[in-house]
């Protein structure tokens, strides 16, 4: 078996004295899309923060493509190919669409190429390239955020709650984009509360509850057992 693109081993993290991650073990194979599901307060977003370097872990290890990266800074990780799209609208509201796109070139792809990719995927953004990102609609802002994942050609993409606050129709469109990114060979860890939408595009799924991974497997099995896992107190 090849080295997984992301491997998390017995990861612990805490806010002050309150422990949120209590020994998370997770592996995302190269080129796979993994959905991470779970109820509110399970620690999903904290896990993203720790993997992306925004928050320090108390113990445990993180490997990206076999390299130990625990304690690395978020900007360094972003430059070597980890693309994190955090919860909420991850755009700069007071910059124009074009300026937002230009900043994406920090990840290593030159700015003209970024603009090119983004505008060919989302022609709507081209129409609005001189508009402030804060004045776009929620769906358009999320498109802009996804442009980073599309254009910067990451090794691993972390998506946190893509669907938050969006109409179901737009969520479906966004997940089509996720599927398209996955086809280009990018590994994706995708965090979602709406299980069905996420499972549609994923190869594997894991369920998190109370700071641990409580189930993992094929999307079909997870969908069948998820209600039990979350509601039935498997934790």
């Amino acid at each position: 078996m090849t080295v997984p693109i992301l491997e998390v081993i017995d990861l612990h993290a805490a806010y002050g004295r309150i422990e949120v991650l209590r020994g998370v073990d997770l592996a995302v194979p190269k080129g796979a899309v993994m959905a991470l599901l779970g109820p509110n307060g399970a620690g999903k977003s904290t896990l993203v923060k720790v993997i992306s370097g925004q928050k320090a872990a108390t113990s445990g290890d993180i490997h990206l493509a076999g390299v130990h990266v625990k304690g690395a800074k978020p900007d360094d990780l972003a430059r070597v190919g980890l693309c994190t799209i955090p919860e909420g609208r991850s755009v700069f509201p007071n910059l124009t669409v074009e300026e937002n796109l230009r900043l994406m070139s920090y990840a290593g792809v030159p700015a003209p190429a970024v603009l090119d990719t983004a505008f060919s995927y989302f022609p709507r953004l081209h129409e609005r390239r001189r508009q402030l990102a804060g004045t776009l609609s929620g769906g358009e802002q999320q498109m802009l955020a996804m442009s980073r994942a599309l254009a910067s050609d990451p090794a691993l993409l972390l998506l946190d709650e893509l669907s938050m606050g969006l109409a179901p129709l737009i969520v479906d469109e966004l997940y089509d984009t996720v599927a398209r990114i996955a086809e280009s060979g990018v590994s994706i860890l995708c965090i979602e509360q709406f299980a069905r939408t996420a499972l549609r595009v994923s190869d594997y799924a894991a369920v998190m509850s109370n700071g641990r991974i409580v189930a993992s497997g094929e999307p079909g099995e997870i969908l069948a057992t998820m209600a039990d896992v979350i509601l039935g107190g498997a934790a």
Partner: protein
Amino acid sequence: MSSLFAFTLLGLFTGAAYAIVASGMVLTYTTTRVFNIAHGAFGMVLAFTFWDFTERQGMPALVGLLLVLLVVAPAIGWFTQRFVARGLGEGPVSVSLVVTVGLLVGLIGVAQQVWPPAPRVVLPFKPESGFEIGDTYVTAHQLITIACSIAVAGLLYALLNHTRIGTAMRASVDNPELLKLFGGRPDTVAALSWAIGISLAALGGILLTPTVGLDYYALTLLVINAYAAAMLGRLKSLPLTFAGAMGLGIAESYAVAYLPTDGFWSTIRPVIPALFLFAVMIALPQAQLRIGQVKGIVTAPVPSFRNAVGWGGGLLAVAAVLVAGASTADALLMGTAATYAIVMLSMVLLTGYGGHVSLAQFTFAGVGALAYAKLDEPNLWGLAMSAVIAGLVGALVAIPVLRLTGLYLALSTLAFAVLMDKMIFQQDWAYKFNGTLQTERLSVAGVSLGTDAVYVWVMVLVFVLVGLGVLALRRGTLGRLLIAMRDSPSACGTLGLDLRWFRVGLFGLSASIAGLAGALFAGLRGSVGAADFLYFQSLLMLLLAVVFGVTSVTGALLGGIALMLMPVWQSDHPSLAGVLFVLVGFGAVALGRDPNGLANLLFKVGRLVRDRFEPQLRERLDGLLPQGGSVDLAAAGAAEVPLRTMGDVSDDAAIEGSVR
């Protein structure tokens, strides 16, 4: 007509220099959210450095200039961002204000220590050359200044709009965490903007030095001009800042040209930036509340009323012993310390509890002293009126800022302090230029407090009473409102609290406490003058208040004593006068992040000691005391029991009543 043209040109020249200074300040503020009050002070220190390079070490002017602008200034900017300003932008505004005021005072100290007062001249660039435009003579220096400002404007525009790092600068204001996820480095971006900002402060300072002179304070106060200019663009827009700076420069130039050279109007010139500032501020629209921010700090514990009275009584007893044995000079010093301590109590209320920073607290004391001297009623009525007048003046300062946020309030108090210092206090009906006013000692109910000892003790008594008052206020509803307002203005807004007038009232109350202190000080001295209430004193006072703890009455007392000791120490070691400012300034930089200050450390030590030794002490006391003691306690407890049940009964009755 030609004179109008000449003065407009002169105005454009000063305006261009202001624009350079102001754009640097706006750049650092917009990219790091730290308003650098020491911006002018950095310009001052670097103008001195430039003098040192060119005049003392004899470098050619251009080499010296490039060395300062491209090496020294960016290095200082980088260093400041790295070790002082990092993370300040996310904290409460009051913290970043205090830290930069600390920088200001520290830098003045550095300048005084490295370049002791002596006449120094910085020549304008190319002093001999100039041009005739019509019949107006334009010096090369003026042209260079204007060219520099145009170049600065162009370069900043290109940097911010057409480069990736410039875009990242603007992005890091919105969300530095997200910028990191993009792969950008907010720290590098902030360091760059500080480096550019300080470099621009240096350029502006050097260009203005031939006109304003190489002076510690005049160049430091450039920050007010810059701030006034930047206000036009709400501290954000660079083009409007340039417009504001030009407008300010021209206004100053016309004031010189067309206002009478004697009487009241002649005093207006130095305060035009302050007046300009207030005018712009009144015209600004309401500031929006920022949501999603809770900037609370853990404050020092509030003592119980019994504890406070006990310590107050103890302080009075100690003061009585000290005063009785003190010489006149020492008693005066103690009185001065009490004055400072009372003014610091006003800061405990305003800054410690309310989270607002005032840079003019001692000016309000000056207003109180002025009122006391002018009323000429040396009794409690006169004292109370002085406090009320100072309070009204304080409210007057706060009203224009009513619709804006705490940062604007703090900065306008600095403008106000300079306004009072340079204009109002100098008027014939006030202290007069270099003059003093005679005052009489206070008399209470016909009994004059003539002797120094008694008077000083009464001042300590006032301190204790005001301190108890401040603590009582903190424990009550108002106190809770204060804390709520400080921690989250937007949450208060959603609860329907109108904070605007509350803020004016708070500011007025705090000013009136300061005014009370000033009135007492006037009575103590017997004669007061404008020189007793320099604006710089307010800055020192704020710093010491924060160093010793601006959230507790104890901190105010310690701070007052320290501020009194400062000039004493300074006159003992005149050669080290600057070092003291450096210590206070950089001390505040180091400790400014924790406004609970040294007093809170003292409390912690006290609690530790008590936790450690109290059980042992109790044990021994129990062994010594006869059994009767505990019986008494039980009896006291028993006496309370019926009261409680009565209370319960009435509660039950009330509930039943409401059910029916």
